[in-house]
């Protein structure tokens, strides 16, 4: 197979059509810290996924920024404030439920970094370092180091509940009023209080008014810091719950739809149990519908050539009870050219199921510059020259339709091998560039109804 001359094809994503960019453009995943692929807290992976740049770049930037200290602050800030979750799953869940596949997706293997062990190791190392330093005569001012440590420990204890709550989801109650979180909160508060008092009142026991005032402010600030995650979590949990309830309702609708259609079909099958053809046809149609609901994310109607092709094949399968293997590579929004191509493909497919023999296969490939369709069957084949000239089928409804639109059509047929119809249609964008004066620029708006004059009186 040769590729037609023309401008180099754009990559599949870039070739996605303009008018429905909102529907076809992959939207940016939300900023979440995924559990898969994380090194420490998942911050870099999350940021990389969100922005759409390689993780390695983000990590490098973070390490470089970490040398100056800003990176560390930024990392810790994100670690604390960005919730845990799979950004792709979250992005997908933001789609309307009736467009989503229902079957559960496979999980990737989760590799978690042993944060706790590393933290403990780091603390022990630091302690050892301090001890060695003491031996070497390097004096640490324990007077303020201890209170600061106590204060930091209190903050860490209080803030840790935010992360734990997001990760485990073991606390199903909203609001965090569980013994564990209360203990964390209380312990954190106590530690911060003690730390602050130690810090402020360490120089002299006869604390004057100003010092006491400072202490009070510090304690209040500490308390606010400690309470902040609790409020954050409360707000988030409420929002989550509301969203979950809405999704539940949507899912129930879909389940109702599926069960209705499946039950209907089963009833029909039972009623026509004697008619093997009819049973096979019903089962096949139902299988196709279920498959579509379970395993594919459905596109908004009118925006996907791939979906249109599948629907077309479904109609032909239903009408003739012959299974057709469909393979689609790439996708684009339908336009006038592709709808002519599809009508021709439909004729070719009808010929294949009527006159050819199974297995019948249809292959559609969307490239940057052209759309190609191959329809193949294993019949006895035929000679195009033997087809009488007054027979409209192949010559007019397949070849003519495509050629009038600037496409090409080739029929290859050999006895004992079968027939293959190859249709090719340049994409709207490249057509306009090649021959602008002949045809007015066609807006590639899929909602435009196809022109009636295109229908040949076949």
């Amino acid at each position, binding site marked *: 197979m040769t590729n037609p001359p023309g401008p*180099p094809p754009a990559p599949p994503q870039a070739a996605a059509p303009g008018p429905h960019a909102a529907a076809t453009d992959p939207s940016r995943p939300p900023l979440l810290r995924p559990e898969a692929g994380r090194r420490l807290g998942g911050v870099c992976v999350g940021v990389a996924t969100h922005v759409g740049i390689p993780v390695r770049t983000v990590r490098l930037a973070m390490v470089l920024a970490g040398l100056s200290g800003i990176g560390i602050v930024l990392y810790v800030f994100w670690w604390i404030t960005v919730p845990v979750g799979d950004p792709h799953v979250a992005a997908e869940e933001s789609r309307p439920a009736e467009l989503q596949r229902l079957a559960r997706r496979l999980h990737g293997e989760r590799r978690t970094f042993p944060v706790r062990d590393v933290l403990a190791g780091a603390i022990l190392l630091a302690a050892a370092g301090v001890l060695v330093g003491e031996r070497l005569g390097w004096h640490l001012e324990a007077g303020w180091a201890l209170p600061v440590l106590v204060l930091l420990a209190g903050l860490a204890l209080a803030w840790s509940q935010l992360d734990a709550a997001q990760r485990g989801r073991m606390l199903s109650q909203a609001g965090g009023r569980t013994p564990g979180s209360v203990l964390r909160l209380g312990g954190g508060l106590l530690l911060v209080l003690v730390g602050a008092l130690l810090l402020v009142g360490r120089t002299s026991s006869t604390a004057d008014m100003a010092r006491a005032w400072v202490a009070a402010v510090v304690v209040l600030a500490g308390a606010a810091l400690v309470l902040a995650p609790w409020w954050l979590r409360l707000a988030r949990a409420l929002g989550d719950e509301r969203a979950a309830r809405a999704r539940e309702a949507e899912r129930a609708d879909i389940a109702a739809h599926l069960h209705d259609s499946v039950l209907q079909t089963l009833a029909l099958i039972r009623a026509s149990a004697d008619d093997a053809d009819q049973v096979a046809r019903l089962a096949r149609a139902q299988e196709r519908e279920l498959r579509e609901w379970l395993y594919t994310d459905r596109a908004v109607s009118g925006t996907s050539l791939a979906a249109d092709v599948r629907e077309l094949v479904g109609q032909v399968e239903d009408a003739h009870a012959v299974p057709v293997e469909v393979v689609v590579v790439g996708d684009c929004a339908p336009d006038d050219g592709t709808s002519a191509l599809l009508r021709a493909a439909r004729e070719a497919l009808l010929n294949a199921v009527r006159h050819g023999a199974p297995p019948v296969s249809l292959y559609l490939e969307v*490239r940057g510059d052209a759309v190609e369709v191959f329809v193949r069957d294993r019949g006895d084949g035929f000679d195009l020259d033997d087809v009488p000239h007054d027979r409209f089928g192949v010559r007019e409804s397949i070849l003519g339709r495509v050629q009038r639109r600037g496409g090409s059509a080739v029929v290859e047929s050999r006895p004992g091998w079968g027939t293959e119809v190859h249709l090719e249609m340049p994409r709207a964008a490249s057509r306009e560039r090649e021959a602008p004066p002949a045809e007015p620029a066609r807006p590639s708006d899929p909602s435009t109804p196809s022109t009636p004059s295109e229908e040949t009186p076949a």
Partner: protein
Amino acid sequence: MTTTDKPTTHEPVDVLIVDDHLMFRAGVRASLDDRVRVVGESADVDSAVDAAHALRPAVVLLDVHLPGGLGGGGAEVARRCADLAPGTRFLALSVSDAAEDVVAVIRAGARGYVTKAITGPELSGAVQRVAAGDAVFSPRLAGFVLDAFGTGLGDVAIADDELDRLSAREQEVMRLIARGYTYREVASKLFISVKTVETHVSAVLRKLQLSSRHELTRWAAARRIL
């Protein structure tokens, strides 16, 4: 599928069937011919891993969606049985049309993918082919591969050892398989031997498993939200 045209002079191939539906396992068992001997059945991830280690079958017929384990389905089974290679090989057999699921199992080490609509003789042939170390590509898998690696002129590998793009020949072979050609028909169309076609297909399988192509990992995610 092109898997029925191998001579059957060898010993029958030992097969473990892994699927969570009893009816389906029974159906597969009944449809396989004497080129294949079923040595066991499993219904979930953990029992499948255990059975594969205990029975050491030549081929494991692996459903993509399986309960148990860490939720990784067939991909998890293949990954946890990686130590059995090359004595035990995996063939994914699935009703799922979702490219990401199928590609996940292939990347975990499966040597091919066939749909559950396959006939008994074809499946037996596919098992034999996998046991012999070849790759089994259905038209649908070929379509997934083309989707993943891209079909444009700029998506063609220039160097032989490039993992992230298909060579022009490999792209051609994949396209023909996606069009419904058997390996034999591909060979005669391109004026090469069936053995060469198998070599190309195996090379594509290797690329699919090893490629670190940025899009390949992101591709599944991007397609989800198309």
